[in-house]
């Protein structure tokens, strides 16, 4: 366990692109990140930093266990998975929201019956309705959640909504916003203390470039 490089985990995909852009803006040489091929660990030339690419939930796991010091991950994943880490900055990109959507023209809250909600995010959904003090049945769906109310499996869905186009095209509409989402910078609790200066240096660079 010799002093390893500072490790940043990025969520693959859209968040990765934006995050790489941010790293470039700060002044890091990101050519390895742009031409990554199939590599999963990439170094930043002339810096004591390496970048790890992972799926969103795994970014949390790696940071939580301390094998990565920092991570960039969506608030949606944080809300669904939870975990112990510091969530120190809202990076402002990857903006969207969790919303409760129903078939156009229906009232989700009407009547006494227990409602069924389909979602890819059972924890977010449970916490939301628990807070409202409403009993609901939650059905976990892996693919396109919009299908569930259309075929009659659920009364509503809780899902990520960006523009609302998918909802509209399928005859659904937002009934309530659940929570706003954007990409967050997370830090392992021990790294934050043992490597405070280096991490704070990076964080302040990032914050300067967010403004």
């Amino acid at each position, binding site marked *: *366990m010799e*002093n390893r490089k500072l490790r940043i985990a990025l969520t693959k995909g859209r968040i990765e692109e934006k995050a790489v852009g941010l790293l470039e803006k700060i002044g890091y040489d990101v050519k390895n990140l742009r031409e990554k091929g199939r590599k999963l660990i990439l170094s930043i030339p002339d810096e004591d930093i390496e970048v790890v690419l992972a799926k969103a939930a795994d970014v949390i*796991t790696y940071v*939580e*266990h*301390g*094998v990565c010091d920092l991570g960039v991950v969506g608030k949606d994943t944080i809300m669904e998975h*939870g975990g*112990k*880490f*510091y*969530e*120190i*900055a*809202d990076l402002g990109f990857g903006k969207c929201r969790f919303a409760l959507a129903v078939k156009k023209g229906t009232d989700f809250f009407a009547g006494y019956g227990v409602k069924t909600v389909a979602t890819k995010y059972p924890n977010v959904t449970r916490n939301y309705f628990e807070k409202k003090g409403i009993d609901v049945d939650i059905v976990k769906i892996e693919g396109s959640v919009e299908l569930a109310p259309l075929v009659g499996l659920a009364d509503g869905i809780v899902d990520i909504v960006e523009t609302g186009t998918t909802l509209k095209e399928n005859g659904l509409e937002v009934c309530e916003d659940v929570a706003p989402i954007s990409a*967050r910078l997370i*830090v*392992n*609790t*021990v*790294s*934050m*203390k*043992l490597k*405070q200066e280096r991490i704070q240096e990076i964080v302040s660079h990032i914050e300067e470039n967010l403004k």
Partner: protein
Amino acid sequence: MKRNDLLTPEGTRDLLFEECKAKREISERLTGLFESSGYSEVITPGLEFFDVFNGYVRDFPQEMMYKLVDGKNRLMVLRPDSTMPIARLAATRLRDEKLPLKLFYNQNIYMVNPKDSGRDDEISQCGIEILGGDSARADFEALVLAAKALELCDEDYRIEIGDMGIFTELMAEYECSVELAVNTRNWIETKDFPKLDEYYSSENDGGFARAFKALPRLFGGIEVLEKAKEYLHGEFFDQKLESLEQLCEDLSKVIPKEKIRVDLGLLSRKNYYTGIIFRGYVEGYGQPALSGGRYDRLLGDFGRDAGAVGFAVNVEAVARVLLQKNGDNFKRSPDVIVWSETPVLALKHCSELIAKGCCAVNSVLGSIEQTREYAKMHGIKRIDIVNNDEKITSEEV
């Protein structure tokens, strides 16, 4: 039906060979330290009644406890924490013992972690509790002992100090709903700056918003305490910060200053902490290796009014770091293997070797050839063959 007879439950593991040795090494170093500092050992039952851990002050989350029922159908749990049973002990069997009492323990705790999280459900802890006494002196002793304990575990350590009392006092003065208080505590504890900035965006509330936003940012070296004065005003906070400063300064006379960290955003979900709280970190382990603090309400909750302070080290986690860093020290092959036609003679020779300080292993294999092969496989460098006249021939492997 699928039988689960070849697996250990998630969050548990079999420890083998050098893992056991490293773990024993750490617990021996720690118990040695505690014992020589005048602490007395206690062992509390692995099974306790649910009620010991459930209440307002004792609020171990019930979903995290392993539960079972006793013969009278009463709810029991596998001990999820050692401090609460020791507080129970202090208020019952030890109630006639004069305070202060200094106790140490070396035992396992059990908790249910989220599935597939890779966390340990069985955690071996070695720790101390100082019950009663002058709180400033007891806090200082606990911190010094914590630092010494960490040093015995790993030279590359940090001890970090915070104070639950600051947040509690702020909240008491702020007078908000319980829900907001819990949320604010969580935001500060997880350094959720975006959420704090969003919720406490207006600063026209007598400085509370400023203070809540500042707490999690106030971490680093001892100088942080000076900076904190910009955000925390009033007699209570002046005194608090002064006593923390004093504590850190005293501590810096015992251990190197750079090992001491301060984090005023260090809070605990454990409701029983009232004063200082502290954590110990070692390089190579992603979670705190040591944690502790002052709990002045817990004993009272069991019917004996007294303050206390204590901490526990996660022995197995530290042992794993030790193994990673110098595992070779724990992998020692026996020095000699002894074989004889007559087992009595072999064992006799073994005893003689052991008495001389050798690690000698008796071969239980049927022939010398098999013994040679075994020695080669296990890296044993020497074979002693005892013939029937008790003459010994040594072979190098």
